[in-house]
């Protein structure tokens, strides 16, 4: 197992699209495998092995080299500041990370802005870049409710359609980052397992960029 390239798949919103993209790249994961309770399963060719993990855990596994490669959203990747290669932007799971606030109320100026987010480091970096000091409240879910309940003045969170924001009486103040899924690769794996790792990179790159018609 040490010599086969081990790839982390993100559970959740990227799981199905990620597997689909791998399939188009000729790396077919048997349908039963994904649904079974096995923790690690191979592709049809037996060239790679896959392990489904919570997205937030993937950068740590890949940075440490426990897992050679993975698919993960750039939101999670930037938040963890993992030292890994990012050879392919997979152009799936595209959304925006935004600063949003309740519609109709002016944002407090100066040092008193309270921002709720699942991404405290990204948020801190963003405001430091703008030379603004803010108070960050780290939450793990339903961030959009924090301003309603009075925990924060604004939020930094992902939006796809903006519907959740509107339903909670909020609007986008500005974009923080464009988010999309990336293929990430461990630095040592790129050197030690270069044949299979490069094959993976080339196949995915080709499917994403050279046959865009094949994408959904």
């Amino acid at each position: 197992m040490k010599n086969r390239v081990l790839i982390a798949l993100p559970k959740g919103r990227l799981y199905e699209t990620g597997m689909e993209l791998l399939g188009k790249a000729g790396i077919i994961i048997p349908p039963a495998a994904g649904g079974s309770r096995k923790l690690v399963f191979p592709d049809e060719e037996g060239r790679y092995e896959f392990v489904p993990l919570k997205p937030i855990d993937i950068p740590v596994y890949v940075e440490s080299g426990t897992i050679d490669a993975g698919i993960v959203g750039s939101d999670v990747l930037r938040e963890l500041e993992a030292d890994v290669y990012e050879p392919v932007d997979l152009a799936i799971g595209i959304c925006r990370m935004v600063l949003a606030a309740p519609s109709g109320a002016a944002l407090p100026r100066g040092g008193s802005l309270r921002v709720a987010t699942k991404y405290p480091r990204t948020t801190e970096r963003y405001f430091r870049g703008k030379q603004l000091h803010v108070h960050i409240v780290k939450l793990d879910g339903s961030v959009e409710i924090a301003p309603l309940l009075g925990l924060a003045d604004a939020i930094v969170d992902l939006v796809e359609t903006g519907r959740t924001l509107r339903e909670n009486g909020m609007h986008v103040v500005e974009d923080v980052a464009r988010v999309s899924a990336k293929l990430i690769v461990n630095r040592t794996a790129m050197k030690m397992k270069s044949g299979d790792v490069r094959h993976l990179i080339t196949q995915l790159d080709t499917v994403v960029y050279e046959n865009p018609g094949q994408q959904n």
Partner: protein
Amino acid sequence: MDGNIVGLPAGYRDFMFEDAESRRHIENEFASVFSSAGFREVIPSAVEYLDLYARGNQGIRERAMRFLDRDDNLLALRADFTPAVARIVAAHIREMPRPIRLWYSGPVFRKTDRHRGQYQEFSQIGAELIGGDPPAADGEILDIALQSLSRSGFPDACVHVNHAGIFRGLVNSLGLKESELAEVRSAIDRKDMRALGVRMEELGVNGSVRAQVNTLSRTVGDSRSLAAVASSIGNEESRDALASLESLASRLPRWRDRITFDLTEIDEMEYYTGVMFTFLSPAHSVEVGRGGRYDSLMREFGVDLPAVGFSFSMDRLGECE
């Protein structure tokens, strides 16, 4: 802490019997290779002025464990050996006949991120050759590094070699501002070839230079791949650097099949001035050490001497044994 006197603070550990013995064994093997090659041991102080780390080696200063002495001087636990060795040469042995051959072994301390399973104390063993010019000194140090790995239980150890001058030469012909260059460098470092291409085009880098950057960012192989790159590179600094890698390989026929030229790796490129090494153990799929030439570091200590060296992670070596 709450009176827990048998516990350890987070990020630290003890090595018990077998682990201690295996580390001792590795260290002895290294020591014997080093001393028979004429390298002499130094034991640098475990405490330095924090300012030792202001120079060159980026990121280390921020991660050093710092504290104040009686007179409120800012001190740090040793966070890296190489600057300490440079200081020692400047302080004690400026007049020694060159080249000066030194080796060291011991713990270094660096702050790490919480809860990532990383230790804050780790052990390094390494050697430095100061006052020796490339390619002879580079060949000597690489030979010693591979010999010592081979002797201490890593007969299949191999090395990925690059040269800072290859990319530096190309960078100078990009004609970019420092902030733009940082973006280009970051895309190469992440190995994101698409983003790199797009960004260079946006920045108005001309097509021929873009093609050269792309070639470099893909080149991993033996001496033949160096020759292929050399024919496509337009600037003298890069071509000289490529030539010096070829000459390094030709000095080490014994290690020919252990050397891979990897021009894609630009990590720590600001620190090294010439050849750069990454040592790997294929059997364990891990990186065990790094090294390279850092001709500008000694100058910061008032001694203008070229230097080349390497350091291995004793923790990685010990885990693999």
